[in-house]
């Protein structure tokens, strides 16, 4: 019987903890002047549909063939124009996607939004 009690207690804690994580545990951290929401959503969709994460990491998660992009937007050595150049032309290993101007803008907005959310990077 004890086993069944322990199991039930763990299961209830699991669901309670999940709820806490879905709500207070993960409040929005991005603030300041943010890019438009529709742009960001489109950018995110493209990021997923082209599977950028197979080569790039956000918050250190993803594939490892390409560079980490979380703070690329505000990185003094990279920044918006640099990102734009790669999205337009590809690179030695980065594929050339035939994005429209609008698509490139929205991907950059998405990366800008992520950069704003990355308060854990700034503290360090």
């Amino acid at each position, binding site marked *: *019987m004890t*086993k*069944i009690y*322990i*199991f039930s207690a*763990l299961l209830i*804690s*699991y669901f309670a*903890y*999940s709820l806490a*994580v*879905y709500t*207070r*545990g*993960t*409040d*929005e*951290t*991005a603030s300041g002047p943010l890019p438009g*929401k529709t742009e960001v*959503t489109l950018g*995110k969709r493209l*990021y*997923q*549909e*082209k*599977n*950028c*994460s*197979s*080569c790039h*990491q*956000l*918050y*250190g*998660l*993803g*594939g*490892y*063939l*390409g*560079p*980490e992009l979380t703070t690329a937007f505000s990185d003094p*050595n990279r920044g918006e124009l640099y990102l734009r150049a790669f999205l337009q032309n590809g690179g*030695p*290993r980065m*594929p050339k996607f035939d994005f429209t101007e609008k698509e490139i803008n929205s991907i950059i907005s998405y990366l800008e*939004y*992520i950069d704003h*959310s*990355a*308060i*854990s*990077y700034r503290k*360090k």
Partner: protein
Amino acid sequence: MNTHPAQLPVNNSYSTDNQSRSYLMLSLCYLLLGLLLGTLGAFQYLLPDLLKNKISFQQARPLHVYLVISWIFTAAQGGLYYYLPRVAGRELYWKQGITVQLLLQLCTSILIIVSFFDGQFGGREYFEFPPSLGMGIALSWLPLLINFFLTLRPDYRTAPVYIWSWGTGLVFFMITLSESYLWIFDYFNGNIVRDMTVQWKAMGSMVGSWNMLVYGTGMYVMERISGDKGPCRSKTGYFFYFLGLTNLMFNWGHHTYIIPASPWVKTVSYVISMTELLILGKIIWQWKSTLKDARKNYHHIAYRLLVFADIWIFLNLVLAILISVPALNYYTHGTHITVAHAMGTTIGINTMLLMASVFFILKTENEEGVESGRKTIHAGILISNAALAVFWGSLVASGILKISSSLNRESFSYTMTKSIPFFKLFTYSGAAITAGLLLLVFIALWLLYPEPDPLPPAD
């Protein structure tokens, strides 16, 4: 009365055995394809133009990961289908369920592979296919859930640990699979911190769920080899099961330390982290001392695989504990050290345990066949484990190199160029792992191929 279990199965066959064997064959096909695509992906690190227009890296990587993960849970499922009637002492509840599941899974896999080749992605690790296909995966698991609970009808007060472990794995796979699709709702999708935290919460626990399946199988095979029913019913056995379950539920946060969720998410996972691997090491350790030489020798192949899994548990345990310490994780996260952890555990532990299960089944079903391939099998085991040691080391080394580069603020392309020697080592040793494991795959496929005249039914 107490006939040694290893000597029983010859005259202990069930009408679904051929179906279970087909299921295991499917799992080996996943491994075969997955290994080839992993090797391709690795070579693409060295030769950027290799097959670039046919199977680019952004196709090869998700295909590799999808296929090898499928190997892991399909092999666990196939084994479970074979063991269920034996544990329950009766035929499966829904016999055609195996074939239904096999067909559902095959169709889903074909759709997934086609969509990858077609360049259609969902773009979410580790299931990077379009989200609608997740439904196919969920559906294909249902027959096993039905068969598991209705064939065993377990009495949870007395059920051995592996039954708890299997049941937990099955249920949590469904829970976490659903959770990994929460992102389709804007509430999750619109907030990157929430989205990524919940995704890795789901994925972290999903890995825990298939570990439950695989470890359950490892424990069952151990019990059968040793003939000792004690450990799987002991207090320690259950204690470690619950510790594993606690880990499955709460340790996932070590994937997301860097994501700015609330600090307690980090604390909870840090405190609970990574006792999971210790768990099995401890159990196997105990069993090993109870194994008698004759029994070890009877199932020497399965036994040797279990011993290798044991070594990998210890090595990966050390690495896992180190990278779960936030101060170290800050540096190792996002480097190939994570890949060393991911592949070290999935190859060294999961694949070795599942191979042990496959060869345990083969030995009981077709002893002569296994004996005739004995040399090749041992060669396959040795080659793959030796190569894995080099592979693992080269991944850790290239991770350390990346850390030192980023401390020196070197550019990405410079770091990549400096890492080439390690990538070479990684690629060549990876190819050797592929070669070693393929020896096992081919022999197992050959021996699993159903015989024309079925064995006589149980007496």
